[in-house]
C-alpha cells in the first residue's frame, strides 16, 4: 500500500471525524433543570406532562435510529411500543402490583420485540424504501386488528386498566424514574450511534450501495438497527403503560408511529436530541392548545393547528429545528481545514 506504511499520528483528526459535536453542556444543564423541577413546582399536571414528554421522547428517539440514522421509513414502529405496553398491562392485570413483575414485563418485552423485529425485518428489509414502508404498514394493521379482535385478552379499543406497584403511583417518584430511564437511554443511544456499527448505519443511510461494496452486510446492519430501535420503543411502551395504568389498542395504532415521525422531523432527524425536542414541543403544544380550547372551541381541533405548525417547520426549517440550528452553527465556524500532518 503506498504511503501508509508509516501511519502518521495526527491527533487533530479525531475532531474531524464527525461534523461539529453538539457539546455536552446543554444536555447536562437541561438535565439539572429537570431534576430540580419537582422541587420548584408541586403542580401534578406539570409533572405528568413532563413525564409524558420524556416517555414519548424515548419513543421518538428510537424512531430516529431508524429514520435519521439508518434511513428507514417505518409505519409500524408502534408495534414495539404497543408490545411493551401490553406486556406490562397484561402482566399487572393478571397478577398483582408487585415490583418484581415489572422486570418480567421488561424482560418479556425485550425478548418478544427482538424476535418480532428480526422476523419482520428479515421479511421486509430487503425491499426498497417505498415497499418497505408499505410492508410495515401492513404489519402494523395486522397486529392492530389482532389486538382489536382478541377482546378476551385486550378488551379491544375499550382497553383495560390495572394497578401498578404503589411506589410508582407517586407522581414525583415516577417523574424521576422516567427521567432516569430517559437519561440512561440517551447515553446508550449516543454510544450506539458513535460506535463502529452505528457509523455503518449512517453510511447505509447515505449510500446503501457503496456501503455494500465496502463489504458491509447491509441487511444485517438494518436488522440490528431495527432490533435496537424496537427494544427502546418497547421500553417507552412499558413506561407509558405504567404512567397511564391503562392500555388499549391505541398504543398499537399507526397514529402512534406518525406521532414519533412528526416529533422526529420537527426536532430534526439524525440528531437524537431533536426527537426529544420534538416530543417537548408536541407535548407542550397539545397541552397549550387544549387549555385554549376552553377559551375558544376552534382550539379543540388541535390536530389541525398542529398540522399547520408541522407544515411550517418542514417548509422553513428543512432538517428540523435542531438540524437547522446545527447547520447554522457549522457554517458560522466553518471547519478550519488546515491540518498539520504529524504534529
Amino acid at each position: 500500500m503506498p504511503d501508509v506504511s508509516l501511519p502518521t499520528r495526527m491527533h487533530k483528526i479525531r475532531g474531524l471525524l464527525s461534523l461539529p459535536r453538539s457539546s455536552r453542556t446543554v444536555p447536562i444543564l437541561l438535565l439539572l433543570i429537570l431534576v430540580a423541577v419537582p422541587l420548584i413546582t408541586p403542580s401534578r399536571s406539570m409533572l405528568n406532562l413532563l413525564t409524558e414528554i420524556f416517555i414519548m421522547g424515548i419513543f421518538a428517539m428510537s424512531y430516529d435510529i431508524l429514520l435519521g440514522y439508518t434511513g428507514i421509513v417505518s409505519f409500524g414502529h408502534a408495534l414495539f411500543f404497543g408490545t411493551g405496553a401490553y406486556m406490562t398491562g397484561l402482566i399487572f392485570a393478571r397478577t398483582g402490583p408487585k415490583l418484581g413483575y415489572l422486570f418480567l414485563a421488561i424482560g418479556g418485552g425485550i425478548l418478544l420485540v427482538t424476535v418480532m423485529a428480526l422476523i419482520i425485518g428479515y421479511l421486509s428489509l430487503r425491499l426498497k424504501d417505498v415497499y418497505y414502508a408499505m410492508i410495515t404498514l401492513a404489519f402494523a394493521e395486522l397486529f392492530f386488528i389482532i389486538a382489536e379482535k382478541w377482546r378476551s385478552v385486550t378488551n379491544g379499543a375499550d382497553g383495560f386498566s390495572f394497578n401498578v406497584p404503589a411506589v410508582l403511583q407517586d407522581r414525583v417518584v415516577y417523574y424521576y424514574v422516567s427521567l432516569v430511564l430517559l437519561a440512561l437511554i440517551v447515553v446508550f443511544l449516543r454510544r450506539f450511534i458513535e460506535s463502529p456499527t452505528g457509523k455503518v448505519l449512517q453510511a447505509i443511510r447515505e449510500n446503501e450501495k457503496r456501503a455494500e461494496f465496502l463489504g458491509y452486510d447491509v441487511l444485517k446492519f438494518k436488522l440490528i438497527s431495527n432490533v435496537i430501535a424496537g427494544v427502546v420503543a418497547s421500553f417507552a411502551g412499558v413506561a407509558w403503560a405504567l404512567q397511564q395504568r391503562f392500555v388499549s389498542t391505541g398504543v398499537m395504532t399507526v397514529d402512534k408511529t406518525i406521532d414519533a415521525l412528526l416529533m422526529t422531523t420537527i426536532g430534526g432527524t439524525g440528531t437524537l436530541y431533536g426527537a426529544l425536542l420534538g416530543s417537548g414541543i408536541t407535548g407542550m403544544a397539545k397541552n397549550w392548545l387544549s387549555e385554549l380550547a376552553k377559551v375558544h372551541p376552534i382550539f379543540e381541533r388541535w390536530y389541525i393547528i398542529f398540522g399547520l405548525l408541522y407544515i411550517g417547520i418542514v417548509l422553513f426549517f428543512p432538517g428540523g429545528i435542531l438540524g437547522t440550528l446545527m447547520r447554522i452553527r457549522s457554517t458560522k465556524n466553518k471547519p478550519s481545514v488546515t491540518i498539520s500532518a504529524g504534529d
Partner: protein
Amino acid sequence: MAEPIIRTQDLTIMFGGHTAVDHVNLDIMPNKFVSIIGPNGAGKTTFFNLLSGQFFPTSGRILFKGHDVTDIPAHLRTRLGMGRNFQISNIFPDLTVLENVRLAVQARSGIHYQILRHHRKYSRFSDQAMALLESVKLSGKAAQPSRFLAHGEKRKLEIAIILALEPEVLLLDEPTAGMAVEEVPAILELLARLKTDKRTILLVEHKIDMVMSLSDTLVVLANGRLLAQGNPRQIMENEQVQAAYLGGIAP
C-alpha cells in the same frame, strides 16, 4: 503458469431482449494491469457490475481466486478481495471526507458489529484513512462533508476508499472521467504506483493514450462481445479492433 485470479466462462447478461454482455470468456492473470476498452455501450460497465456482484448473470460463471462466486452477494466478494469504484461517483455525501475513508478502513479491518465502544477508540483507522487521503492529495479537505468536493476530488476520494479496502483486484471504471485535465496526471501517477504493487488492476478507460503505457494487457469489448485481447501493440495493430473502435487513432 499461474492460475488466473479472475476467470469468466460464457458470461452473459440480457436486459429484456438486449444482450449487454455476450458469452465473454476471459482470464485475468494475477498482478497484471488490464485495461478494458470499447465504444460507448460496449458493455464494459455491465461487465464490471457482473464481476463485482451488482448484477447476476443470465448465464455463465465467474471464478475468483479459484472459487465460483457467480451467486455470492457483493459484500462477500468485497471481503474476498475485490474493490470497485463506480463510473458515476459513489460516496457518502453527508459524511466527512475522512469518515468516508475511515468507514472503508473499518470494513477492511473486520470491525463490523461493535455497538458499545466509541469509534474513535480505534484511532488507527483514522490514522490510516488520513494517510490514504494524503496519497490522493485530499488530506486538506478531510473535515469537509464530502458533498462539497469538486467532481475530480470525488473521484480521488473514491480511489482512496478503494485503496483502504486493500483489494487484491481493483475494478476501476473510468476513474479520471470528468476530472479537470490538470488533475489527470496525478491520478495516472497513482495508478502507475499501484501497478508496481502486488495487485491486479482492471481499468475501463476511454483515454487510450493513457492506458497504453500502463497496461500489460488490453481487452477490447464491442457489442457485449470480447473482440480481442493482447498486449497494447498487438491490439493497436489488430485490424478488427481498428475497424470496430480505434478508427483513425491507430498509426
